[in-house]
């Protein structure tokens, strides 16, 4: 497999919500590439559109949401990209058979709340086996064997016992492991993880993050990691995209994003996180104001009303582009008029 060829490529995605109060441009022109075996973190505060981006990829948007524009190109497994075996997910019927095969087969997903993934009335084994039957049709192995093997992989000491347990019988961390097992049973090449550790305690979070890294090394899958936690980003990501109000404001490799940030929003965000080491904690500089109301997006750069480096007549009139078009080594791409 060619590692330079993205597995998933999003081009100028716009997902809007049409509701009674007006139109919310939840995702407003996002472009991203996901490479094999790499972790892309999408980070931002509530309402920035990070989860809607994930839901657009999987075509599981709420009813009011619609993809208005853009492409989501997925390289199919076993497909040869030079022969064009790439499918545009935007063109597929969200309820159709092709999309169902992609969900779970090509792209696995895990969420913050495992209880919403599992049905409370069936056993863990039953539910994961169902996913195995859907996506592992060519294997000769019994679904039960596949499931027990996967449960052992994600760290259950007694897969036999877990097989017949109900979701409520597991602790939060164990439920998260079961959800990861279910997401990976179809051997997807991309795993979308939407805030998978936000509801967990820190020691459990450390277990799950380490598990995800181990499974990534074993199965070679790419991970799209959606989170608001900059610490988790630093620990997990290869590439980082920072979102604000439906746009990517900065993008680059993890080291550059943390050590040479350029966009004022990212700089401010990094300054507003309390540090663990008391010696490094001098003063917090919060970002003034708050995220604007989605119905009245500011003109020009969406961050300009809160920006410490606001330039009149530029920032409030023209929308900045993510530049340079191709990332240079040691530099991030930033959507800010300071750099144009």
């Amino acid at each position, binding site marked *: 497999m060619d590692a330079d060829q993205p597995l998933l490529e999003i081009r100028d995605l716009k997902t809007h919500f049409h509701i009674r109060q007006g139109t919310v441009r939840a995702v407003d022109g996002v472009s991203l590439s996901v490479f094999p075996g790499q972790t892309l973190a999408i980070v931002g*505060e*509530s309402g920035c559109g990070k989860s809607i981006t994930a839901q657009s990829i999987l075509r599981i948007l709420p009813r009011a949401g619609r993809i208005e524009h853009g492409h989501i190109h997925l390289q199919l497994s076993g497909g040869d990209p030079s022969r064009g075996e790439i499918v545009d997910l935007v063109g597929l019927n969200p309820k159709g058979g092709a999309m169902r095969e992609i969900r779970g087969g090509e792209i696995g997903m895990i969420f913050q709340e495992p209880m919403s993934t599992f049905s409370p009335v069936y056993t863990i084994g039953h539910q994961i086996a169902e996913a195995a039957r859907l996506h592992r049709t060519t294997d000769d192995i019994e679904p039960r064997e596949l499931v027990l093997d996967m449960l052992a992989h994600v760290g259950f000491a007694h897969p036999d016992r877990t097989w017949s347990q109900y979701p409520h019988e597991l*602790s*939060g*961390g*164990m439920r998260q492991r079961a959800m990861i097992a279910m997401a990976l049973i179809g051997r997807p090449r991309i795993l979308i993880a939407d805030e998978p550790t936000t509801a967990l*305690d*820190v*020691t*459990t*979070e*450390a*277990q799950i*993050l*380490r598990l995800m890294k181990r499974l990534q090394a074993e199965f070679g899958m790419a991970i799209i990691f959606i989170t*608001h*936690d*900059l*610490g*988790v*980003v*630093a*620990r*997990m*990501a290869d590439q980082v995209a920072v979102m604000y109000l439906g746009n990517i404001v900065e993008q680059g490799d*993890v*080291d550059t994003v*943390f*050590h040479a940030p350029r966009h004022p929003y990212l700089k*401010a*965000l*990094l300054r*507003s*996180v*309390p*540090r*663990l*080491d*008391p*010696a490094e*904690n001098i003063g*917090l*500089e*919060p*970002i003034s104001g*708050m*995220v604007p109301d989605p119905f009245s997006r500011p003109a020009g750069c969406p961050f300009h009303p809160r920006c410490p480096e606001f330039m009149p007549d530029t920032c409030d009139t023209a929308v900045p582009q993510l530049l340079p078009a191709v990332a240079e080594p040691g530099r991030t791409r930033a959507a800010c008029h300071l750099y144009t």
Partner: protein
Amino acid sequence: MTAQTPAGTEATILRVRDLRMHFPIQKGFLRRTVGWIKAVDGVDLELGRGQTLGLVGESGCGKTTTARCILGGYEVTDGEILFNDPELGWVDIASISKDEMFSVRRNAQIILQDPYGSLNPRMTVLDIVGEPLLINGIRGSEREQRVAELLSLVGLRPEYMSRYPHAFSGGQRQRIGIARALALQPQMVICDEPVSALDVSIQAQILNLLEELQDRFGLAYLFVAHQLNVVSHICDRVAVMYVGKVVESAPTGQLYDRPRHPYTEALLSSVPRPDPRNQADEIVLEGEVADPANPPSGCLFHPRCRYAVEQCRLEEPELRPATAGHFVRCHLADDLELMGVSAPAA
């Protein structure tokens, strides 16, 4: 039990001694008690005036139950909760009369975690912030004026007082909660995960506001939280809880630099840091937190502790001073060289 004046100085506002709160497990038609959940089982705390004491630990460790006990929310099983009330002097909240509790409540307030669930959606901001004033006999235009002052104190426009909570964002709601807690000019405020539900940029605003208010009014905070970076930023002292017990307590810098309990070490190493070049070598704890209804023998942490020896399985350690002001509940505290937060850089 009568409250006597403890030997401490008047600089102390709260002293909790060996607090225990056990909840019965009831089964069957007759609701017979078949066991006890030892939610809090040996908590000692001391909070100075104008100081911030962090109470940290994972879910189920008893930190919120401790906070509720301190506010008289439960009839505690055992122990003392001595509060230095400005009008009554030292009182034991664990055995206090109703009238005395009324006074204590004026001086000990709480800020809750959930800015959505903790404000009544049918009450206006004036009613929410003004309710403690009303209960204490402040009415009419005087009340309105006080509420206006409180709102501007926490950074909200007084014109908003006739609005309902749904009109505010999470950060603004937390400000309303803070205004309500400060309405009666308390001496001590218990902050139960006050910024856990907020985005980072808003979290910093609220933390700065809490610090500002502390400087201005000399408030003492008992800061209950699971976010160790937030605690590092705001607390003078930190107490770490594990399955109902305080396992370590020390001044913040000392605890983070040189932890003495293996659980504290593991906890600190688990926190993902916002710097890809400075990721601690995290100590992944095996297994699950002990069940407070069926605790293991000896030290509660021994089944997950990588330093555990035979003694840990048999004998329960006491909370004892390791150095001045640094208390630890571990048999091996003096022998272990544990990793603090600044270790990876060194």
